[in-house]
């Protein structure tokens, strides 16, 4: 039971990180129909940049993160939208998919050349130790991760539901055409979602890289997991992607321990396929009316 609860907390903690990445993914999809196949690489790259900042300026992980954040906002937020996404939108979503796959390959190979093919250790935000309270064991790192992720998630939800800009973003995400009619500056809101996504992946990098280590190929797994979290939960709802992230994290951790660690990623995939077959709008998503 003690092991189970520790696994559960670890699962929720990694799930929280997947949720952050998945929410960004879902936001991009909703506002601009961008299926970002480079989302995993978007997490991998800031991990390396934080490491480089740490060694270059000889600073700790948090200051390095704070330097990296604006860089990522500019590159993976603003430039990504302006240079790659915007010119391709008129051609439908297919060329855009191809372009993000190209981007993913470019980032991955580029990271391999710049930072090498070996996994580099990445410092925890707090030191890792196991604490016990009333028989439940949990790692401090997991709890910290969970805490940070939950603060961000709650903040994001409050922002989206309570502020004018947030509600405009939500409206844009739900239905850009209606939003435009309501007088919302849709382009600006789309840009905001790209910036949000860039911020979310950078935070995700800070939290996930300690356990994944910084490696050029991290993007494959991370991208796939974020992807699955978004679909399982429901592509068209921020809430869906959040819950999907937690679910994937938990299933992955429990399945790896109790059934087979070799099939770690297989459990979320099976869940994904079942969800797509029987509830394509996602467990918590809205059903979209098919128009003829």
């Amino acid at each position, binding site marked *: 039971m003690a092991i189970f609860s520790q696994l559960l907390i670890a699962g929720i903690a990694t799930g929280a990180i997947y949720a952050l990445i998945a929410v960004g993914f879902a936001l991009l999809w909703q506002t601009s129909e961008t299926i970002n196949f480079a989302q995993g690489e978007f997490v991998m790259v800031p991990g390396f940049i934080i490491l480089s900042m740490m060694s270059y300026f000889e600073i700790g992980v948090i200051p390095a993160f704070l330097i990296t954040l604006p860089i990522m906002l500019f590159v993976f937020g603003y430039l990504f939208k302006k240079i790659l996404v915007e010119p391709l939108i008129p051609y439908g979503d297919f060329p855009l998919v191809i372009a993000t796959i*190209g981007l993913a390959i470019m980032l991955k190979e580029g990271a391999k050349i710049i930072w090498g093919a070996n996994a580099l250790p990445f410092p925890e935000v707090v030191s890792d130790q196991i604490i016990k309270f009333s028989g439940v064991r949990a790692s401090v790192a997991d709890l910290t991760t969970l805490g940070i992720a939950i603060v961000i998630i709650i903040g994001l939800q409050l922002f989206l539901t309570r502020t004018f800009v947030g509600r405009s973003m939500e409206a844009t995400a739900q239905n850009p055409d209606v939003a435009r009619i309501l007088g919302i500056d849709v382009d600006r809101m789309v840009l905001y979602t790209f910036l949000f996504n860039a911020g979310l992946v950078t935070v995700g990098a800070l939290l996930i890289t300690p356990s994944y280590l910084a490696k050029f190929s991290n993007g494959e797994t991370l991208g796939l997991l974020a992807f699955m979290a978004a679909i399982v939960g429901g592509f068209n709802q921020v809430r869906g992607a959040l819950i999907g992230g937690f679910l994937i994290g938990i299933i992955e951790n429990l399945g790896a321990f109790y059934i087979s660690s070799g099939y770690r990623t297989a459990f979320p995939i099976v869940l994904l396929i079942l969800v797509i077959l029987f509830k394509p709008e996602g467990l918590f998503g809205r059903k979209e009316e098919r128009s003829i």
Partner: protein
Amino acid sequence: MSQSENLQQEIQGTSLSDYGDSAAWQYLKWGSLVALIIFLIVIPHYVGAYYQFVLSLWAVTAISAQGLNLMMGYAGKVSLAQGAFMGIGAYVSTLLVQNWGVNFWLAMIIAIIVSIIIGAAIGFPALRVEGHYLAFVTLGFNELVVLFLRNEDQWTGGPLGVLNIERPSIFGYSLFEPTRFYYFTLVMLAISSLLVWYMIRSPWGRAFKALKDNPNRAESLGLDTTSYTLMAFAIGSGLAGFSGTLIAPLVEFVEPNQFQLLKSLEYLLMVMVGGRGFLAGPLIGAFFAEVLPEWLRFADEYYLIFFAIFVMLLIRFFPEGVAGFGKQIRRTFFRQTSPQVQGEQNA
């Protein structure tokens, strides 16, 4: 009213075949095909074993790309499991030959049939879900296959795979030697190309295109969209399996990494870059993926970056791929449009 009647009288005199492709384009098209075939036949006399190997790889890759083009370019069903089906073809045929001593050709046929059956089974989700979701199902399937190959080492040899795969012989004539194996893959590519060509010009080809352009309308015209979707998947996956049975004896080993998701994404890029929905598309795409890197060896590890940037630029400026660019040239330079058409379109 009277104007349109006049127009119609003018038009009625015109025969149907006047406004097809111009003769010059026909010559260009068939001429380049013949030139390509001659080139492929004589090239082994001028290049060494290594380039023959590269060209064999091109031929084998093109077969799988043709399968994906059939699904995606014609029937409009995106599959991100082409790598996995190559893996199924490669492993099934190899293991049958190595562990059960099955004859290579029989093993090849069994492997292709297995790919076709699993392909049709994967096609079932395609009936329930559309577009992106379908791509996600196939993507998940690809990961599952690779995990299986990696973990079930009592059958598959695990992460190390199977080494020392023998090249087959045909009627006692060994195909071990690179030139012979090259010609063998070339013949296989020719068979696959003819198959796809026949399919595309048959009523099935039209049904596939109808499925892609407008599934609703296809259904309202009585087309059995369910069967055609499954068939597209079965045939496309079957060609991937076919290609897999060839790649194993070509590179003489199989391992799970050859067939991972990245491979499937590469096939997607190939078909897009070559031009989806064009018969020449997969040949061009496979050229970019397998042959061009050899010419750009000086670029070394940067090649994939160049390739990725090239893909992004190409898609940015020619969303229809290289073959699509060829079509634009045809439209511009090799085709007379009747004055009536232009008149009416301006009206």
